[in-house]
């Protein structure tokens, strides 16, 4: 993985760390419970929500494993995320009925000062397990790099980069957010 943070890693105080962790844990619960509108409300107006696909390239290949102008499963702004949520909420979203059961497990949360005042760079790892009907079970594991922005008493998500381990997605679809 070639993720690089150029900013120095300046840790935050324990209270900020705790509040960021609570934000991410609550976000995971909203997704587990299909509270799509509440989840969308956590996004900043200028959200960039990005999940590139992984290419197998030789280490010497300077093009790297992923890039912003290459394949992606998400490369979304708020309009795009809202469109995806609109599909989830349709009674004709056949692949969501009966409901998919989700578990979003978030761990390894590190919080650092961001580049702007009131912004935080947040690293975390995740395990996502989805189960559908009798025995469709899909597992995704990866790492996220977020930019959270202070907003009143809470935060908004301004940037998210999601790096999964799979290069061939071992599932028929990706009917969740990570």
């Amino acid at each position, binding site marked *: 993985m070639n993720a690089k943070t150029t900013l120095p890693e300046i840790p935050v105080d324990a209270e900020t760390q705790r509040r960021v962790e609570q934000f991410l844990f609550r976000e995971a619960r909203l997704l587990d419970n299909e509270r799509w509108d509440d989840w969308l409300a956590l996004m900043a107006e200028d959200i960039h929500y990005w*999940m590139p*696909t992984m*290419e*197998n*390239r*030789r280490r010497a*290949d300077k*093009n790297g494993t992923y890039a912003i*102008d*290459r*394949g*992606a*499963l*998400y*490369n979304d702004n708020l309009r*795009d995320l809202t*469109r*995806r949520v*609109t*599909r989830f909420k*349709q009674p*004709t*979203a*056949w*692949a969501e009925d009966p409901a998919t059961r989700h578990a979003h497990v978030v761990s390894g949360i590190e919080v650092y000062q961001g580049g702007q005042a009131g912004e935080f760079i947040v690293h975390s790892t995740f395990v996502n397990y989805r189960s559908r009907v009798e025995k*469709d079970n899909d597992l995704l594991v990866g790492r996220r790099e977020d930019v959270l922005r202070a907003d009143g008493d809470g935060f908004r998500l301004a940037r998210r980069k999601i790096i999964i381990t799979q*290069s*061939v*997605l*071992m*599932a*028929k*679809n*990706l*009917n969740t957010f990570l």
Partner: protein
Amino acid sequence: MCNANGDQPIRLKRRPIAQSIENLDQLLSLEQGRMSRDVFWDKDIYEQEMERIFARCWLFVAHESQIPKAGDYVSTYMGEDNVLIVRQKDGSIKGFLNTCPHRGNKVCFADLGNARQFVCNYHGWAFGIDGGLKGMHASETYEAAGMDKSEHGLHPVAHVDSYRGLIFATLDPDAPSLADYLGDMRYYLDAVFDMDEGGTEFIGGCVKSVIQCNWKYASENFVGDILHAGWTHDSGAKAMVGGPVAEVHKTPEQSYHVNFNGHGWEFNQDIVGNCATLGEKELLKYLYVLQPKVAERLGELRSKMIGAISSCTLFPNTSFLPGQNTFRTWHPRGPGQIELHTWTFVNKKAPQEIKDMWRKGTMMTFSPSGVFEMDDGENWEYSTRSNAGFVTRQQDLYLGLGHDTRVEDTDLPGNVYQGQINEANQRAFYQRWLDLMKADSWKTVPQRDVPKMKEGV
């Protein structure tokens, strides 16, 4: 066409064709619009498909734009055979099995890149981009054994050729030419891959996923099944454009099924219907500005196909959607699984921001996270999986729509049927499947379709 083999002796001895499964004719009753579910489930049928379809047909392997420079390569599949498609120093393209002729290990683990040589990790056998064995670790031991390096190159595919930037390869030395194989479908391919003078390119890399379905469910869907869109994709349409899918079944006079040699295209003449589902007005504007220029070059009908409600499958397992600009291959992985590789194609001369919108549009609609594809995978998985039932799979399936819709009096190439809500292309796809499955060699594959286009046009 080039024979990638050159002068190298072929160390791969093709075994004689296996005896066919008996009574294949009983699987299909196309006149009655019926077919057996065994074609989606039976392991022996799958094995015969590997030999008589995938080791025989011209298969899509790459777009020219993916490998512009000498040494550029992509790793892909022909059936379950892993192949490397490599641009040569003279600009030609060769294809090789991605396996070392020494002990069989894979020689290239990258999906794509630029190579001066391919070196096997096991014993260090090193192959040039022309496939020739150049050297190996401890080469003197092989010299002592009297081994002749010139006899141990990477095994080449039988033929490589391209049409409008799309590169195809076949593993059968006796295959007809690519022009004959595609036949009159080339006329329609031009509407998408030659709509603009610069041709097309692939952008944004390849998105790969696995679906637990038989490969033919995906191919037959794109060969002619727009019918499913109005039902399956209602939620996706509401997400992207705020309303249901267009009711194309109400205006059959504007649309067609056309097929040739088992390839099929269902299309409307609404210019931008598919493209509209990406929800980007700028893309519609781009196509509307382009349309009169396409009409000048290719005529009125094809100019109305450039982004219309439509879909196409090139037999056996490559499909695309005009307007949404997704291009895909459904690689078989046993009777119950496919590996789906998808790309985004655009006109090379389109402005960058238009290309970027299409790259994002394919992701939003026809990718594993796309609001349309999301509902396809589940349909195909359970259409496949329900056939596990011993009694269930003895129930025939229906594909009888549009039986009396053949348009005889037409200048249009191919077999033409009125109305895109139709199953004529699906029936033609399975007829071609049956013809290939029954034939012991290309020589005995019946030529059912009469070309109107000239060879090599």
